[in-house]
């Protein structure tokens, strides 16, 4: 979750100052209505949550197994839906601060989709064809 950043400019205010006094990112990620003064931190949370959902869904879909485009459609709906509920109802962030709900929805979507496909294909092949 803590994506390291490089090349901070000397005359920029250090990002720590904005989050000083707040609980860790992990704690805030799992607490309702947390404060996110650093936008990138929240976007990182969304990003890694999507990757986790992708792995779990890939495992589930491969073991059940789900087949066809139904599986892909369900994953897309689930991935978008869970995170939408997370940032609108659980965290209740103002999505305009992040460029609208679309920006939050597409954060890490493609890589999570690819990750889901890889896990789904691998588990499905290994369990049912090996």
């Amino acid at each position: 979750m803590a994506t390291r950043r490089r090349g901070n400019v000397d005359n920029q205010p250090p990002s720590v100052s904005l989050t000083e006094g707040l609980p860790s990112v992990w704690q805030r990620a799992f607490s309702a209505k947390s404060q996110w003064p650093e936008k990138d931190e929240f976007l990182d949370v969304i990003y890694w949550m999507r990757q986790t959902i992708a792995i779990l869904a890939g495992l589930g879909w491969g073991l059940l197994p789900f087949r066809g485009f139904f599986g892909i459609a369900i994953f897309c709906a689930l991935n978008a839906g869970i995170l939408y509920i997370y940032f609108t109802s659980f965290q209740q962030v103002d999505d305009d601060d992040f460029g609208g709900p679309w920006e939050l929805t597409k954060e890490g979507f493609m890589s999570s989709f690819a990750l889901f496909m890889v896990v789904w294909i691998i588990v499905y092949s290994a369990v049912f064809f090996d």
Partner: protein
Amino acid sequence: MFADTLLIIFISVGTALLSEGITYILVYRTETYKKLKAEVEKQSKKLERTKEALGDSSDKNQKKKLERQEEKLKTNSRDLSMVKMKSMIVIAFTFTSLMSMFNSIFDGRVVAKLPFTPISWLHGISHRNLLGNDFTDSSFIFLYILCTMSIRQNIQKLLGFAPSRAAAKQSGGFFGQAQPGVK
């Protein structure tokens, strides 16, 4: 089949690390890159703030200031891409030879079974060099592309080499996810 799949994941992780390693040696550790990247990030954030502050204002001076900032950002982004060019050329050459090697190793081999039938215009990739008409058979290249798409960006993020969002947003995906491994 499972051994092939694991090997492809291993290859994908290896090539992603290799390309990041090459880029680190040729680009990331250089002072020019560090300076330019910091500059672009600073300018992107500044431009974003200016745009927010300006809103729908029609003040000509403010608009000119905004244009100047955008122009400066464009110039720096272009310089940054020129710095990256060197590593991109090296990566392209390395991966072209690596890919031809992997293609010959996995030629005609079904590496995985797809739980869906890909749409017709993907058959050329998903069923490349495979015999038969079972389109749920997956070729090496299809799985490799998917692995690269998922693994490379995550590795970049974990290593801290992912381009900043502000810079990517301002330059319209200029630093977007490049896939040098997919040739």
